């Protein structure tokens, strides 16, 4: 009984914290973009504008939740829920500290890859169900981009799996006690990071939504809280990828002096800030550039990384 209660507390605690971080990122991103563009960003609502999120929430909840008459209604409604579902599911397998995790899954890494692949359905279905040309183009791009970047996202992680000899994320972190995997797996780290940016379709790889060409891509027709779910889903995705980078390459909760959970959060937030810095500074590539960059540069690079890591492990 006590066991179950502790489990429940962990589940809802993690859910609450993750949702708070993801929605807080809306504020953080706007403030950081402001900082890097020599302006302030939202600083009116509450201390440092922190309650901006709350104000935005109230606004988005009171907006008309419009479903276009030409849309495929059930799919249109399910699509935003899918992205939230898949991303939140993945947070279950991440070990926050040695003791704090929702499930200690022995295929945690595969589960993460599977769930992020399922996330592609969300944007594709949203683009399809909206029945509008911009949405469809956005959805198509999202499908192609996420499928192709999925490949070497997985491949880049196989080096980590080889070194640690496990798919279990907790064991992967514990395998990094001596040396963080970002050093022996530097190429894997870089490839995973780029694939992660593409996976969460963040700038510079936000071609599925590309405001300047596709209006807003797959979520053109969405409004109210359904749009809000895509929005929060995107920030959840950033949080997830940052947490995964911290776990897989930067030793998760490992670190001196400070308690483990704070090390995890520090690493995660550092990568979140880096994601926002990417958005603040890099322009969006053309679509064919994105695809050829993926298949012609990152794919061979991750294969090479795999071969070299395997060779070194065999030779040892």
């Amino acid at each position, binding site marked *: 009984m006590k066991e179950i209660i502790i489990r429940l507390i962990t589940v809802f605690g993690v859910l609450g914290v993750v949702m708070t971080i993801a929605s807080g990122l809306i504020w953080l991103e706007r403030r950081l973009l*402001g*900082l*890097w*563009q*020599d*302006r*302030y960003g939202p*600083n009116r609502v509450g201390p440092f504008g922190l309650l901006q999120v709350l104000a935005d929430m109230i606004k988005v909840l009171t907006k008309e939740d419009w479903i276009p008459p030409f849309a495929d209604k059930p799919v249109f409604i399910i699509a935003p829920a899918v992205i939230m579902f898949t991303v939140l599911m993945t947070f279950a397998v991440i070990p926050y500290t040695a003791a704090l995790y929702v499930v200690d899954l022995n295929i945690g890494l595969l589960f993460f890859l599977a769930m992020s692949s399922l996330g592609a359905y969300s944007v594709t279905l949203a683009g399809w169900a909206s029945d509008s040309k911009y949405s469809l183009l956005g959805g198509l791009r999202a499908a192609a981009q996420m499928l192709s970047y999925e490949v070497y996202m997985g491949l880049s992680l196989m080096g980590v799996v080889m070194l640690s000899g496990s798919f279990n994320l907790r064991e992967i972190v514990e395998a990094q006690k001596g040396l963080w995997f970002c050093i022996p797996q530097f190429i894997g780290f870089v490839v995973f990071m780029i694939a992660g940016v593409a996976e969460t379709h963040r700038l510079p790889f936000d071609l599925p939504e590309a405001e300047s060409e596709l209006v807003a891509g797959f979520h053109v027709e969405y409004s109210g809280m359904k749009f809000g779910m895509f929005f929060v889903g995107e920030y959840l995705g950033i949080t997830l990828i940052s947490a995964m980078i911290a776990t897989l390459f930067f030793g998760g909760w490992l670190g001196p002096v400070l308690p483990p959970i704070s090390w995890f959060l520090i690493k995660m937030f550092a990568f979140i800030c880096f994601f926002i*810095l*990417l958005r*603040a*500074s*890099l322009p969006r590539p053309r679509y064919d550039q994105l695809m050829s960059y993926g298949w012609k540069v990152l794919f061979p690079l991750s294969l090479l990384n795999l071969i070299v890591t395997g060779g070194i492990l065999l030779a040892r």
Partner: protein
Amino acid sequence: MFSLLRTLWMVFLHTFRKRVTVLYPEEKPSIPPRWRGRIILSRDPDGAERCVACYLCAVACPVDCISLQATEDERGRRYPEFFRINFSRCIFCGFCEEACPTYAIQLTPDFEMSEYDRQNLVYEKEDLLISGPGKYHDYNYYRVAGLAIGGKDKGGAENEEPPVDVRGLMP
């Protein structure tokens, strides 16, 4: 590839730059004195209204936001019976100020005139009229104009001589 990293670094360096934003309601921006803001009607150094109700401002106004009615007082001075500016229409172009022959209508560096009710943006003469001479301290139209009014006959203005009697024989 290198240029991308350089871009990232240079954007990151902006963390330590000073922000250019002026936090407006707390920190007032400095506004040039010739700023075209809220319109006022000024007075003579003597304290009388400058406006002679010539309608030139109303004619010059491209959005027709000025309306007035001329009348005369017992001394023969023209003045507006009412003078109304609809600031919800006004585009602050300053044409009225340029058209005004007596420097009566002037634009000021005040721009904080928001209202919740649109009707409150219609300013009447008592809202427009100020107690001072505005930008032109010493100018007094009736003191330099040749027009005869009560208390000042023809030729009584500054830099003006009494009219010559063309029928007289005296040099």
